[in-house]
């Protein structure tokens, strides 16, 4: 094992995959400036700074991916993806299908988002559900450095476009990472804590809030199971249903806006597939229908915290049908 931040875990995955496959290249705003070690090892042709123009960065990646390269692009902050929506959604997501399968688009788009730096609404906006809703794209958001490395390696090897979101609040937190080759498959959730009374489902930094909530709940005699989705598309239906079938209670928590968020899809999945096993209503915790404020208390109030997750789980455990 070695200790890496999530940012360095991304660098380690890039290094290993660029060594493994000469078709992998990385470009974006400041990529060559920030990841000088990659430039040293792989040269300026495979590690490139770009103009500050997200649309052409993404479009260039799509064109390159469709014709034999395997690009990884860094678009910095998630809201900047709005400038690249045509390239990601209409080109990367659709040109395989409308061409009758003539092309594939193995590309990874990196973007940061989430609370922690007080950078406000135009740098912090958890828009991952937009891409879940768009066909042809895969969506990943890791909660720790180990998964960040393993998932990024899997994303680079995947033949589909992958949106890879990095939680700002986790970016420079150190964590244990296995040394050597390890690839974390896309579409597989991780059960981080087992428990039979209530299921807490989350992704990104909110996973850690769920783990804190589970600790608090344990003190009250409630055994919470914590599931880290890791991939939002494909989503691990099997893991979610297996857990809720046992516990009969579900809290979904994420930092993204609650309205039509990933939590809504999970709630619908459980209502459709495991209704008879539910002992209490499903609870969704997420951001309000509001942009994120820069002010620290407001930014933090946007995010489901451990106490609100624990309170919701406790309510479910004492719920009585009228």
């Amino acid at each position: 094992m070695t200790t890496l931040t999530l940012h360095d875990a991304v660098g380690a995955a890039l290094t290993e995959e660029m060594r493994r496959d000469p078709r992998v290249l990385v470009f974006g705003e400041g990529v060559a400036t920030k990841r000088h070690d990659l430039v040293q090892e792989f040269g300026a042709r495979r590690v490139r700074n770009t103009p500050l123009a997200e649309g052409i960065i993404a479009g260039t990646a799509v064109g390159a991916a469709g014709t034999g390269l395997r690009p990884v692009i860094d678009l910095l902050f998630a809201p900047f993806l709005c400038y690249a929506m045509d390239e990601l959604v209409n080109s990367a997501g659709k040109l395989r299908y409308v061409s009758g399968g003539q092309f594939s688009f193995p590309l990874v788009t990196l973007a940061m988002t989430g609370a922690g730096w007080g950078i406000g609404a135009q740098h912090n906006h958890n828009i991952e559900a937009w891409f879940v809703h768009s066909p042809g794209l895969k969506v990943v958001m890791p909660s720790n450095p180990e998964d960040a490395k393993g998932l990024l390696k899997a994303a680079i090897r995947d033949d589909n476009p992958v949106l890879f979101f990095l939680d700002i609040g986790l970016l420079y937190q150190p964590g244990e990472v296995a040394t050597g080759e390890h690839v974390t498959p896309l579409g597989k959730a991780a059960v981080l804590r087992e428990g039979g009374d209530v299921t807490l489902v989350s992704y990104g930094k909110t996973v850690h809030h769920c783990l804190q909530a589970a600790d608090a709940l344990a003190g009250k005699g409630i055994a919470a199971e914590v599931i880290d989705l890791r991939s939002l598309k494909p989503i691990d239906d099997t893991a979610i249903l297996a857990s809720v079938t046992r516990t009969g209670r579900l809290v979904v928590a994420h930092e993204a806006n609650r309205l039509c968020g990933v939590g809504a899809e999970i709630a619908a999945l459980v209502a459709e597939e495991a209704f008879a096993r539910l002992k209490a209503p499903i609870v969704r915790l997420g951001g309000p229908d509001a942009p994120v404020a820069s002010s620290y208390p407001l930014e933090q109030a946007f995010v489901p915290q451990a106490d609100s997750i624990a309170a919701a789980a406790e309510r479910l455990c004492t719920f009585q049908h009228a």
Partner: protein
Amino acid sequence: MTHTQHETDPRHLLEQMLLIRAYEEAIVAGSTAGTVPGTCTSVGQEAAAVGVINALGADDLILTNHRSAGHLLARGADPGRLLAEVMGRSDGYCGGKSGSLHISVRELGVILTSTIVGAELSLAPGVALSQTMLGRPGIVVCFFGDGAACEGSFHESLNLAALWNLPILYVCENNQWQAFVHRREATSREHISDWAASYGIPAGTVDGNDVSAVLAAARDAAARVHESGRPFLLETWTYRTRGHFEPDDQSYVDPAEREAWLARDPIAMHRDRLVADGRLTTAEADALDDEVASRIAVAQGFAETSPFPDASELTRDVYA
């Protein structure tokens, strides 16, 4: 590629233009009759497509757009499979999933066709990057209109192509109309080629209705891209004689402008020149008309009898 062996034969250029015209007129008739979905035609722009495509080599890759029939047919696409695609049939080049608007034919090097105006410009640098990084010989040819040149992607694409030394031949088919808006209302300069200078990209404008002139200009432009490894922008000055999307009564078009361009019909101009020069007899020209008409009839028969895709196709090829 069959086009290379015919590339200097002016009769071949005429035949290709006639085929494109007949193909699109068949689609217009079908859409009027309700048997074929509406499309964006390129009637009046045949010389611009045929002249450029015949200047290219088999290794060159082509990105086109929603007005693509000319590029596809001149590159050698089968009109039956194209028409089947337009009609949503399983024998279409994309299995009926494209329809008329985003037809790609990878085996002909016509790739990544998007109908989002300007998307072809955003994709072209990446294709050229693959060509250079993977050591492939062909250049990238990107067809777009004056409308697409007003998108930010045009400017971002040219900037990056110049900055990264990408071998792209940008071909702006300036057909004077951006959907339902005349280019005079939408562009700050008379010519799109004027904008290329801002990016240090050499450029030129050619009479897009003169197929011989387009062929010569495109050969020169393609050679420059091959030799320099850098972009070039060629503007073909032409006219969309039909509407934006069939059916379209063109009530917004100045009749005098349209009449003036119809008098410069690229097919009639080329045919008359060949007859006047003694390179083609009237009887031979009429025979070409008949030959093309029978090819289109065969294509229609093929497309109409091609089955619709099975419902199981609905979710195939979403993911690789």
